[in-house]
């Protein structure tokens, strides 16, 4: 007979660790004891979560007890409409903005109109236009306002969020301690407990390992490639409301504008950056949940932070843990479902990122060669073929990136469908160009009225301070 779960041990440090603790403290039944074991000696690689969240982070942060006012007032977190890629593959520039479903006119999706006119697609995306002009405002509810279709994520400093969560997550059943890991002990080869280097034995029903890429709790995972990375901060540049990523022959660099600082990240092949902060392997554990041990965050998988994928995966894994939190010591069924779903999510995020390298006239740089040295997966080939054939977007089960993300990316990478939707033949050329012209004019006039991003966040902050009496 399997016994009910009464205790959980979360070990590690940093962003995934504090997010998991916040989520569990706020959502687990009251009689489950939570032990937080802060492990010493771990390398901080949280910048590899990429400094940018997807729009769904708004609700996710809420579920961790952090609402938007708290984030804005008590950390350097700022708003972002998406990512601007510059000189990608040496010649491509586009904005991968967050967007709600595109308008549909006469039962035909807006992007088909753009295919028909071979018009530059970004002109029809309000947050791309606003972002490139350094503007920001919260999207209104009014559906007639073109800005209502925009979505935004957050740019953030992971250490900032970690500290904020740490101070906010207090609960009587949460016991924090620290130590240095020695070994995992296994009862009958299935149930694990943990021993510290001072000989203390921690018995628990369930272990969640958030100790990062080189987790001392388990073997390293299957590696694809290695990267080195370095962050640095500098004085803030006004007027940026996008994350910027610029490719170079050995890797890429990104910058996000926080409220008071710019945060840079350089990522590249080994030897490409002097004095890097860390080395990290890109890869995954095939079964992050085994027996009563679950690896989460970078302990489960590392994805290159070229898109918000790393944060999406972290968020989804924590949400998944909550929905599949084991009810008894026999967790085989939960583990199987968790591994299935997290495997799917990772695969789908990897498709989105891999897609960025499927370009004609790709540079022959060392970095590019390394990423493309294995052929693109079949699922990706199908997506690209379908889009090139007639602008059709193939979607798989519960993909983290939405159809809009894919369409924006395809256009951004210069993929031009051969044919447009046949139903457009029922409209005249004039009708088609008027529709697009009108949308673009509305967007331009709206963007003119939007404030620069830095001014917007300052004013928003002032408003919050007044409201919250800070």
């Amino acid at each position, binding site marked *: 007979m399997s016994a009910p779960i009464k205790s959980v041990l979360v070990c590690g440090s940093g962003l995934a660790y504090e997010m998991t603790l916040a989520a569990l403290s706020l959502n687990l039944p009251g*009689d489950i004891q939570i032990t937080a074991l802060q492990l010493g000696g771990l390398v901080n690689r949280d910048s590899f979560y990429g400094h940018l969240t997807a729009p769904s982070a708004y609700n996710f942060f809420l579920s961790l007890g952090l609402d938007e006012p708290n984030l804005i007032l008590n950390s350097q977190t700022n708003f972002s409409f998406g990512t601007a890629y510059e000189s990608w593959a040496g010649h491509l520039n586009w904005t991968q903005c967050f967007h709600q479903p595109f308008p549909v006119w006469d039962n035909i999706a807006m992007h088909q109109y753009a295919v028909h006119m071979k018009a530059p697609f970004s002109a029809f995306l309000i947050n791309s236009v606003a972002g490139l002009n350094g503007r920001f405002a919260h999207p209104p509810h009014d559906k007639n306002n073109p800005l209502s279709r925009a979505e935004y994520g957050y740019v953030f400093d992971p250490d900032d969020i970690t500290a904020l969560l740490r101070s906010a997550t207090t609960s009587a059943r949460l016991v924090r301690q620290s130590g240095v890991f020695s070994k995992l002990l296994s009862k009958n080869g299935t149930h694990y407990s943990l021993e510290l280097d001072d000989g203390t034995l921690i018995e628990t029903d369930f272990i969640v390992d958030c100790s990062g890429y080189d987790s001392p709790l388990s073997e390293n995972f299957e590696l694809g490639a290695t990267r080195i990375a370095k962050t640095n901060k500098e004085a803030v540049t006004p007027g940026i409301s996008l994350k910027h990523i610029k490719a170079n022959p050995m890797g890429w660099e990104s910058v996000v504008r926080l409220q008071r600082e710019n945060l840079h990240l350089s990522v590249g092949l080994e030897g490409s950056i002097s004095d890097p902060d860390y080395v990290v392997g890109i890869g995954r554990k095939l079964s992050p949940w085994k027996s009563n041990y679950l690896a989460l965050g970078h302990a489960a998988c590392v994805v290159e932070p070229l898109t918000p994928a790393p944060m999406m995966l972290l968020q989804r894994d924590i949400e998944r843990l909550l929905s599949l939190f084991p009810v008894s010591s026999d967790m085989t069924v939960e583990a199987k479902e968790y591994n299935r779903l997290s495997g799917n999510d990772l695969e789908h995020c990897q498709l989105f990122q891999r897609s960025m390298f499927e370009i004609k006239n790709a540079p022959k740089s060392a970095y590019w060669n390394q990423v493309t040295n294995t052929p693109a997966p079949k699922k990706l080939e*199908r997506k690209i073929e379908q889009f090139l054939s*007639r602008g*059709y977007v193939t979607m798989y089960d519960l*993909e983290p990136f939405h159809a809009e993300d894919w369409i924006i990316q395809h256009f951004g990478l210069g993929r031009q*469908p051969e044919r447009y939707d*046949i*139903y457009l033949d029922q409209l005249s050329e004039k009708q088609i160009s008027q529709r697009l012209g009108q949308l673009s004019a509305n967007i331009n006039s709206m963007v003119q009225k939007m404030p620069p991003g830095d001014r917007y966040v300052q004013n928003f902050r002032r408003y919050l301070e007044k409201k919250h009496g800070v």
Partner: protein
Amino acid sequence: MASSQGKKIRSIVVLGGGSAGWMTAATLSRMLKPEDVKVTLIESEQIGTVGVGEATIPDIINFNAMLGIDEREFMAATNATFKLGIEFNNWGKRGDSYMHPFGLQGADMMGIDFHQFWLYSHQQGNSKPIWKYSISAEAAYDNKFVLPVNDNRSVVSQIRYAYHFDATLYARFLRKYAEERGVVRVEGKVVDVGQNDQTGYIETLKLGSGEEIEGDFFFDCTGFRAMLMGKTLGVKFDDWGHWLPCNAAQTAACKDTGPLKPYTVATAKDAGWQWRIPTQTRVGNGHIYSQNFMSDDEAVDILVKDMENKPMNDPRLIRFRTGCQKSFWEKNCIAVGLSAGFLEPLESTSLYLIQVGISRFIALYPDGNLSSVVREEYNRQIRQLFVQVRDFIILHYKATQRTDTEFWEYCRNMSVPDSLKDKMDLFRAGGRVFRYEDDLFGKTSWIAVLLGQNVFPEVVDPIVSDLPIAQVERSLASMTKSIGDAVLKMPTHKEFIGQYCPSPMAKA
């Protein structure tokens, strides 16, 4: 400027004039201009149609809306009634009864699924079944009906419905629609198919009269015959008979004497099950069974015995095979309807599968070169749908505790696809439901059948079982009260039909 097409498809031929054929022709006539693409439908009165297929699921509303069909007009013309769900009798154990309603059962609270609250209160002695928290089910059992309102604050907004109708009249209704929009109907039996020597693509259909009909693209809507897909193009069939063991039906209609029920009844029998589907003019009955476990004569006896009135016609035998084609789109031909596959009518999904078969074609509308890219994507999507629906239907057979007949012993002990086994295991462990994005049957449906057939999780969500029971009972009671109040104010199903969409044939 880009073009919509390379070489264009200029003519499409639909072979078959059952529901599948006319649904296809109607959709094509709505989406394509006759001057661009000529649509021809061939049907043979000599062969006739299968003539069953009376119950639907709510998605049919979208199909009709896409065609721009007026609901009242359509209902009056097809003798249609409303359907709020399916009542299943004797499935878990003999004597059991549950409802699989359309729409929600209860409201999720605190981000936790409603059924967890229900399970908790059930453990604590609440004897109300879970469908008591569904407005569709409660209205159904009271023989009441109203259309949903567009106001989230009202429980009446949660009503979801479909139709029961006369399938032959539906095909006739769509025929009129399609012919008005330029579809050309040809009467005749196709006796030969002309294919391109090199590519094997279909080029002409030859009628018994000697007439030849040419086309660029063909729809095989020939029912179980699958004349183009199977016979001409040689596509193989994936037989799922080991999971869905019924392979025959006896059908007959009778007069309706009771109040007009807004739901289908599916009663498990010794070697299968029997449906009861009320339209405005009659009740359709059918006994689905496995010939491996029961003789045809026995099946007829059971059918007739369980009908409330004498049959209006001699019971008709229909043999079938459950499964689907290995490919739905082969060369320049797509199979839609029974020619694509059949999963038996337990959850009324066949017309829906037709609907998706056509709409996916429309979404992927190819140019005349018919690239394999488009075809593969179509086949992937349709197969996924068949597999998902298949698993849900198998669940009804597998999740039985019946041991009283060989047939049910077989079903209880049969191995099921891994995809279904995993779903059942996950639910048994903690009451959690597998998620697939495009699953036709969502959480509520899975839960209705699992709980309705006595598959209970070992543990209830610990957060819920931590709550004071009185608090949970209060929330549940307020749900049943608002549902009860709303149902009380509804007209009866018969009254509603009488003023909304009476069929001239019903009045006569």
